[in-house]
């Protein structure tokens, strides 16, 4: 054996020994699902949909579990429009008329939608790398897509068509008011889209200082935003220019 070859083998041996003796300690990994709320609970005054069951609440003191169930395990969000219950479930939107056994299912054309906003005939939903899925826990999506998707669907054909995709940074919540769509997009702030043409969402304005995890629109043209700083309220009479109203902690 030549001296050079011998040295090479010793080097490999040293590398192997060194590797087995020392263990590298990596930095702490911290995977957080910010604002860890699901939007399961929803009601239309007659029906209550929870994480796991559908209840008739004609008598609120005696919610009656409906045998139909709502199969929300594994889903991410649900909402009731009139007497229709829509449940998002990792890439599909199931739809049923409450009180019947009809279970048509839309295939949303993207995996891992997070929160949704609904307008008649259209669904606007956020895809987020870290989504709140599974029945109990927070999981990491296998892809790394952050975007707004617009689906058109029809109650008669049960088919959804992907109309538009808009790349986003780190979206957390979504809300719609007529033709204005509001998206809390992480450090990029609040983005306001004009969706009068749903297939062409156009960015009207960005408010980088409005950051938060959750959002709610009130009847009084007020946008409520919660973050680690508390509750902020903005007047959105002019949707493209939200005006600060108040803050409470």
């Amino acid at each position: 054996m030549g001296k050079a070859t011998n040295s090479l083998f010793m080097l490999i041996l040293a590398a192997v020994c060194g590797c087995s003796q020392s263990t590298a300690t990596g930095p702490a990994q911290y995977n957080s699902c910010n604002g860890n709320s699901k939007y399961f609970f929803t009601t239309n005054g007659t029906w209550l949909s929870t994480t796991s069951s559908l209840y008739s609440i004609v008598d609120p003191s005696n919610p009656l579990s409906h045998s139909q169930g709502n199969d929300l395990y594994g889903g991410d969000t649900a909402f009731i429009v009139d007497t229709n219950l829509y449940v998002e479930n990792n890439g599909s939107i199931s739809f049923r008329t409450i009180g019947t056994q009809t279970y048509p299912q839309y295939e949303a054309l993207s995996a891992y939608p997070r929160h949704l906003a609904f307008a008649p005939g259209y669904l606007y939903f956020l895809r987020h790398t870290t989504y709140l899925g599974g029945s109990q826990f927070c999981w990491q999506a296998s892809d790394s897509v952050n975007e707004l998707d617009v689906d058109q669907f029809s109650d008669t054909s049960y088919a959804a068509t992907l109309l538009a995709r808009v790349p986003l940074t780190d979206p957390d919540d979504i809300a719609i008011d007529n033709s204005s769509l509001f998206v809390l997009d992480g450090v990029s702030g609040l983005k306001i889209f004009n969706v009068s043409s749903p297939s062409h969402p156009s960015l009207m304005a960005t408010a980088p200082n409005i950051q938060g995890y959750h959002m709610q629109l009130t009847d009084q043209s007020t946008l409520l935003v919660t973050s680690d700083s508390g509750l902020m309220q903005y007047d959105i009479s002019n949707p493209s220019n939200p005006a600060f109203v108040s803050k409470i902690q």
Partner: protein
Amino acid sequence: MKVAFLLCILMALVSVGCTTNYNVVESAPDYITADSLHNSVHFIAANPIIQPGKILSIGNFLFINELYKGWHVIDNTSPSAPINVAFITAPGSLDGTATQSVLYINNSVDLVVLNISDPAHPSLIRRLESVLPVPASPHTSVSYYPNSAPVVGWHDTTVNITFYPMG
């Protein structure tokens, strides 16, 4: 000899391997007893908003979830000067919905129905026990799955994980 030497190295690799240790922050569940859970909803003075979650807007009032803790009651009659009026304790609460007069929330695995006809002074109407899943954890990784006791929150725990690339 060269072959024997290579075999030796290979065996060393297989037997010991290149291990790497990682510290991973995971969630571990906080439990309370079923009896404590069933008596955990109280109406107390306003608490500061620290980790807000879902927002419900009912008339002039707002109900804001404090993650894993309960619900803030905010009088928003004047949006320019909202008043934090009360707090509903509900350990493990992450979700809720409301009609004009009734608030439905989760209290860990229980569904709790509250009368909010007088929003500043809610009252308990009904509790349905163990009808909901365990409240979600704040982290992707969960150190262990909860047993049957009610989970009302989660705490961080650092777990040292050894990675064996050679199997």
